[in-house]
């Protein structure tokens, strides 16, 4: 398991290949009267893993949840500014939340499979959009490829009809990633996906995330500095609702530009 402690090999990518995965412009967000995000500007490149770090309560989850508009279900959230996903303004009046969420999948802090069989969990998102139009064979193929992609197929292929909640936490979290894939998202948001897992499971899920890199643009929140350092291409440091620094991961950890960043990375607060 020693290999996990080393930074993963990073393939150099051209800086501007294709449109930006996520482009945030001047985003302000309020929970009721409480302002949680201040003038956030951010450009997340396609096909890489970007880690979002910062002390607890600085707005990482809030920013992440704005990117698929899941924040809106609270009913008391106000947002100003713009977020573009692959060039499309997701807060535009004509944008549909449902389409946004197909494009932008989300993995939560605690694995939250639905209380359904494993197979139905994988197909849940897909079936929402393909009511009655796909054969059993098609569905089987989708389930297999999604579960293979998260390296779960061999472990669960004989119990696809078992409730997903009977799986181990690691398997549940992988399943939660797998169920995003059949709708072919381009961006995956992950909010501390490993924080409920033990170290071995963390390493396994991290590996998986690293494998998905390239096919998807991944924005991952983590409070684990080691994880951010070894499993991300770029790093964004947030503090009190603002983005303080955004740079390549090596640069951020070796030579942070801002005093607050180095304080945080070295564990002086948060």
């Amino acid at each position, binding site marked *: 398991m020693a290999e996990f402690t080393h930074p993963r090999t990073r393939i150099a990518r051209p800086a501007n290949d294709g449109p930006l995965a996520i482009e945030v412009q001047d985003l302000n967000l309020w929970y009721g009267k409480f302002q949680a995000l201040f003038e956030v500007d951010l450009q997340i490149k396609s096909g890489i893993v970007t880690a979002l770090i910062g002390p607890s309560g600085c707005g990482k989850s809030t920013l992440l949840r704005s990117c*698929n508009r*899941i924040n809106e*279900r609270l*009913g008391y959230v106000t947002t100003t500014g713009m977020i573009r996903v692959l060039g499309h303004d997701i807060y535009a009046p004509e944008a549909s939340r*449902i*389409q946004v*969420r*197909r494009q932008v*999948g*989300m993995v*939560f802090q*605690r694995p*939250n*499979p*639905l*209380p359904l069989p494993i197979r139905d969990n994988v197909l*849940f*998102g897909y079936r*929402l*959009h393909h009511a009655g139009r796909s054969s059993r064979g098609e569905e089987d193929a989708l389930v297999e490829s999604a579960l293979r992609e998260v390296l779960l197929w061999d472990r669960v292929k004989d119990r696809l009809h078992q409730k997903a909640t009977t799986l181990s936490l690691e398997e549940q979290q992988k399943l*939660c990633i797998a*169920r*995003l894939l059949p*709708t072919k998202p381009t961006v995956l948001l992950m909010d501390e996906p490993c924080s409920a897992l033990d170290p071995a499971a963390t390493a396994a899920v991290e590996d998986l995330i690293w494998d998905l890199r390239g096919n998807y643009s991944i924005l991952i929140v983590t409070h684990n500095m080691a994880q951010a350092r070894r499993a991300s291409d770029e790093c964004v440091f947030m503090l009190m609702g603002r983005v303080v620094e955004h740079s390549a991961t090596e640069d951020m950890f070796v030579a942070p530009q801002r005093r607050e960043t180095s304080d945080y990375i070295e564990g002086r607060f948060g």
Partner: protein
Amino acid sequence: MTSDPNKDSAGPPPKPASPQPASPGPLPLRHAGHHEWATALDHRDRTWWFDCIARLAVLGGGLSAILFIGAIFVFIASQGIDFALHHLNWLDFLFGKRWEPTVEPPEYGALPLIMGTCWITGVAMIIAVPLAFGAAIYIGEFARGRQREWLKILIELLAAIPSVVWGVIGLQVMKPIIQHVFGVQVGLNVLNAGIILGLMAAPIITTIAEDALKAVPETYREAAEALGASRWQVIWKVVLPHARPGLSAAVLLGIGRAFGETIAVLMASGHRLMIPESVFDSAATITATIAAELGEAAHGSEHYQVLFVLGLLLFGITFGINLTADWIVRGRRSRA
């Protein structure tokens, strides 16, 4: 600057050497100055006594509830058991079509009452369940904050309307409406009683169904919405299936409520001792028959006793319904 405004007022002089400030602390020392450390060790402060008394009161309440139910059952059984075991022909009782306890020779066929109860309860549920589930879904899934609280209070108020008021509504409001709308002679019938009972049972079903919806973890809704489900898809595909045991229990308890209701059905059903053939026939229920006839039956007579047998039957049915509801809910808990 005076730190203690009470010093100026004419009252008991301040205790000379008391180190305590005048303001009451969270744990008042009852013997300030004396036995201070003994007081500190004595844990029987006000909270302790309050705890003690509250525990006794709750225990007493619980025990007396059990005692009362037991006593009621014993009473009903003692009045009817002898007749039920030795004189009553159960086949005739359960399947006889004529309830003529005052004719010579008397007939104790309870089928018209059983069928009347079933018809009216059935109509009541057809009306109550969609209403109640609709209300529960609206309150649980769509209403927010203030609106939600108000709606819940309103539903509870609805549940608190006395049943005789519902009976009057059946008699004075529903009767002419039914006669007018359906062009029937008799306005006091299964439909009328069913509507009234449905409206009476709906608040209970709503309250319990709403609890069942609330018990579905928020993370399920969030997960489904993040996968691109609309609000209705979340409700149909996640919330309702998961809440199904609780919802069934809600319906069963509503049925239990409808079975047991007496005065409103007596007023609205027309109380005709025959098996109804359509919703426009008048009908009689088990409860209404007991209420209507117990006053006239001579104490200890056959008629009196057979009414208690009816009571036992009702007791058995509602008990069964409640147990089933309980079992469904419990079953889900232990499986989850």
